[in-house]
């Protein structure tokens, strides 16, 4: 999967958006995952992770954390989101110190991720670089919509529902925060940054012509 690689947006929008992923390798280190996953969750919760989940059971915006923890298994794949570089750094330090032997990936702006690695005392082993979108780009929705939809790389958050959330904000049926959380509920992995989404939705709502507000 490359579902956290191609988050779109300008630098200002992306600078508070970091995804972490815990990954076991099939046939090599894929046993006794549940206790290791609990260590990841404890670290995430201690470091102000705003959303996390296990694709097999859902994310904490949609399901109580205890329910996700109770369903952990060897098939669990945990992911989550931070909005602060300092919090990610502390998270990486904790995971490194735990010595679990499970692959860890941090997705974000490369200069910021490098800072995190330097501060936490780890080195990038492999990088998957995003070279953006190619092909029939004229058929894509606008950049403002993509900044929100691409936070669910499996595309469980559609452009249409983003537009509806903007309508709901304009017509005062929802706050930007409520709308962001509602969208985050649709992304089972737990990589959707609902805090960033709320900011983007608010910007879209405020940019609507006065007559439609």
């Amino acid at each position, binding site marked *: 999967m*490359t579902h956290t690689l191609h988050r779109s947006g300008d630098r200002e929008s992306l600078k508070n958006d970091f995804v972490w992923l815990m990954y076991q390798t099939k046939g090599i280190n894929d046993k006794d995952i549940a206790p290791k996953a609990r260590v990841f969750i404890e670290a995430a919760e201690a470091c102000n992770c705003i959303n996390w989940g296990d*694709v097999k059971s859902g994310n904490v915006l949609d399901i109580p954390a205890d329910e996700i923890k109770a369903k952990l298994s060897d098939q669990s794949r945990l992911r989550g989101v931070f909005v602060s570089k300092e919090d990610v750094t502390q998270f990486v330090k904790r995971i490194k110190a735990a010595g679990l*032997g499970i692959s860890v990936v941090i997705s974000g702006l490369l200069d910021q991720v490098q800072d995190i690695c330097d501060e936490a005392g780890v080195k990038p082993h492999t990088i*998957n*670089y995003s070279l953006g979108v190619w092909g029939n780009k004229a058929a894509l929705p606008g950049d403002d919509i993509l900044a929100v939809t691409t936070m669910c790389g499996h595309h469980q958050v559609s452009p249409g529902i983003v537009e509806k959330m903007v309508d709901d904000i304009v017509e005062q049926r929802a706050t930007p925060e409520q709308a962001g959380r509602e969208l985050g509920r649709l992304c089972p992995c737990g990589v959707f940054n609902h805090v960033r989404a709320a900011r983007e939705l608010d910007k879209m709502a405020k940019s609507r012509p006065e007559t439609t507000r």
Partner: protein
Amino acid sequence: MVIVDQDLCTGCGTCIPYCSVKAISMGDGFVRIDPRKCTDCFVCVRNKVCPVEAISKGPLETFYEQYRHLLSDPTETTADTGVPGRGTEEAKTNDVSGRVRRGEIGFAIDMGRPGMGVRMSDVERVARAVTAAGLVLEPGRVSPLGKVLADLGTGEMQPGARDLFVLSVIIEGKCPEARAKGVLQALQQVSGEIESVFSLGLIMRPDREGEFSGLNILDGLDIPRPHRGKVNIGLGRPLAEP
């Protein structure tokens, strides 16, 4: 395909905006699902968006229907690869798997992404272009695309798969660094010939000095240096290649 119970559907249209590929539209008093577009991602069903529960999962009877669903619903897991979502690990476990080594460049060509969906005939067009340029595709045991290719060496698709429309699928492969520029040039060429889009990921290891000098293949190709990426921080064990 998703099924709409026309006796229950009130035609309220609540479900319509949830579909990423616009497969749901309003008919005469009830919504319709376009079978040529529905990817069986089941977002509408799983999230219970219908207020009267008129939408449900239809049967996935053929291999290709099951394959389309597997690629489009991230809560499913591909049996052979053991990986949920679109079933590939690419760089995420490279510290342990060692799939992309020093001197090699990995490609993750995420067809249909972001959110547009893609017909497999478009995927075949791109797969043929990159294999001709020297990309060696991953086999079906590690990458789901390999399961529907008739010839991994040429990117030829099984005839029965060509008309499938999926939310996204990843063309994964690697080549020696010396051939990577040619693969990028092939992608530049074929990107003007497809109906859909792809998002491109370039996977590499640092050189012995710790620099990601493989990025130099972008020089002269009018491709901006990337500012965002996914970094495997090397905590997996055992390490495949220190």
